């Protein structure tokens, strides 16, 4: 789960990481009031779960409260990568002498958290990693020991030549590690970590991603989820225990298992179609899940053809068939459906579907090809 910048900086501050003062606002008037409270120059920043906010015009400097209001007016309601901006962060503008990067992620290969720093900050760190990996400084953490003081210090002395800044940076790295660990994060980032002309360090942007598996035992973080800022289909899916991501195509699909779901999407493309979504109903096959899945798919107006691809293992094909029949009993489907089922209780499923007037297929390629054919060809359709 991604946190918004304003949420992440609040958590950072709780752990003692220096962040410039700021508050979130949902209206231009609020933004102006916050700017007045803060005094001095501020920055108004769109709070959306999308990268490249700056380039999209979602970040504006405002020398006066009136400017802050005007900036908020322009930013609130703006759409960045398909997401509507509903909140802005109004934060005191920092004076910047130097920008660095500090972050912590899990290194899958070393099976350890890695603290990373880079003397260039405020930039696209992925690009640095790909182009000039030697510029990224690393400390691998033994998860049984945590980030040891000398590791934080070593990283900090490599990042900054002077002892005062190195000491401050080492302390921030230690606090950032505690934030990471105690929040169950899979990523925390300060980008940029700014040095002011007075030589002080400040975390100007804050990013946190929480491991979804940690949320069960961290209701206080779960509560930070911004459902308004998400696709409503994805919210509904999560509540129904499904995994759903909306895409640009027109063939809506419902599959059991993430790998098979991705392979199904790939096969739709292989046969010239475009998947409208990723949807994994998971291992269980309770009919309610199937009903929820169908409701989410059919609500997407770009879906022109629906494909079920079920490989029955633990999932029982007859359960899925019953779900489809139940979901379509009350309201007829607005678009054609292609159903492929094979494996556990396949025969029973076919019987259930056929007696409800559905055809059932058992071959994946054939089913995908048919579902693609049923979506009317649209050059560049969305």
């Amino acid at each position, binding site marked *: 789960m991604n946190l918004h910048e304003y949420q992440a900086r609040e958590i950072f501050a709780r752990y003692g990481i220096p962040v410039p003062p700021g508050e979130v606002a949902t209206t231009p008037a609020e933004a102006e009031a916050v700017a007045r409270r803060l005094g001095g120059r501020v920055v108004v920043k769109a709070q959306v779960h999308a*990268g490249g906010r700056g380039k999209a015009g979602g970040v504006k400097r405002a020398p006066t409260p009136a400017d802050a209001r005007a900036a908020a007016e322009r930013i609130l309601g703006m759409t960045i990568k398909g997401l509507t901006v509903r909140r802005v962060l109004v934060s005191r503008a920092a004076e910047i002498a130097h920008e660095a990067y500090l*972050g912590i*992620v*899990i*290194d*899958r*290969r070393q*099976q*350890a*958290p*890695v603290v*990373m720093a880079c003397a260039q900050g405020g930039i696209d*760190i*992925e690009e640095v*990693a*790909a182009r000039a*990996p030697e510029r*990224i400084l690393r400390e691998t953490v033994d*998860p*049984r020991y945590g980030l040891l003081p000398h590791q934080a210090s070593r990283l900090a002395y490599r990042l900054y030549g002077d002892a005062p800044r190195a000491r401050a940076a080492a302390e921030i790295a230690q606090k950032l590690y505690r934030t990471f*660990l105690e929040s*169950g994060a*899979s*990523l925390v980032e300060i980008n940029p970590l700014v040095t002011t002309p007075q030589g002080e360090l400040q975390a100007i942007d804050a990013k946190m*991603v929480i*491991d979804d*598996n*940690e949320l*069960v*035992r961290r209701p206080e973080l779960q509560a930070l989820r911004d459902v308004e800022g998400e696709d409503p289909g994805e919210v509904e899916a999560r509540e129904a225990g499904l995994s759903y*991501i909306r*895409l640009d195509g027109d063939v809506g699909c419902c*599959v*059991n*298992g*993430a*790998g*098979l779901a*991705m*392979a199904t*999407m*790939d*096969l*739709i*493309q*292989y046969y010239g179609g475009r*998947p409208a979504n*990723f949807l994994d109903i998971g*291992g269980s096959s309770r009919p309610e899940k199937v009903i929820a899945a169908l409701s989410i798919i059919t609500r997407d107006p770009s879906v022109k053809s629906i494909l079920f691809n079920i*490989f*029955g*293992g*633990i*999932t029982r094909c007859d359960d899925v068939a019953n779900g489809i029949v139940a979901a379509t009993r009350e309201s007829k489907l607005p678009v054609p459906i292609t159903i492929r089922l*094979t*494996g*556990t209780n396949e025969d029973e499923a076919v019987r259930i579907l056929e007696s409800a007037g559905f055809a059932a297929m058992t071959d*994946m*390629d054939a089913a995908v090809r048919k579902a693609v054919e049923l979506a009317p060809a649209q050059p560049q359709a969305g």
Partner: protein
Amino acid sequence: MPILIDRDTRVVVQGITGRDGSFHARQMLAYGTKVVAGVVPGKGDERFDGAVPVFNTVAEAVEATGADTSVVYVPAAFAPDALYEAADSGIRLIVGITEGIPVLEMLKVVRYVRERGARLVGPNCPGLLSPGRSKVGIIPAQIAAPGNVGVVSRSGTLTYEIVWQLTRAGIGQSTCIGIGGDPIAGTTFVDCLEAFEADPETDAVVLIGEIGGTDEQEAAEVMRARMSKPAVAFIAGQTAPPGRRMGHAGAIVTGSAGTAAEKIAAVQAAGVPVAARPSDVVGLVREVCAAR
């Protein structure tokens, strides 16, 4: 010889009385797997289905039954401790089925297990199936047939799909192993490839990958440099939106975004053919075996 499990594998089921544990214990028993014990704290002295003795602790189960392999169906909140327990009770192979274990927990678990000389497969994995010999986990038995192709995969149902197509085409499997899709896993593609390479009853390997991480790139390197047996790959997620699954974090560490395209390129560069569709795997396996 299949890898990791065989006819003699003696299995203890941790969480044998739970919903999943009981269902799959019965499936394993029906397949002929030697399920010798169950473990549920507080239910020691009971018998599962009147036949399998249940113990309070894995240590007791191992002592009483000689179990050497454990399969864990314990809910996520208790699963790390179940994995720790298996590792320090003399179990040599631990198969973690449970999904939803936090990554930060797993970082500690994998080290603990390794230090105690055990092997962990999973978590969040379907387990292992050596057709005709033993099944430890949840892979449906009816999709597989004995043979000489090793299958290793990060996913569940996609594996079943491909194994089922192999079986229908008359291509049996030595072992099918699902290593799980979590970012931190006890067993990697590389571990499995090395085991298949060493297994005299495996003639070729099918590797089923997906987006995220760099496991497939590491596997490609092993297939290129250290494997004499032919391999075929399929990699899912070409149409997956970038940045969704560990995309950003992974990319900072490795400089790779973990996309399917990168993985396919790496595997092909290792001389291993990559199937465009799951249904192309059968044909490629036939080709690489014939060319041998």
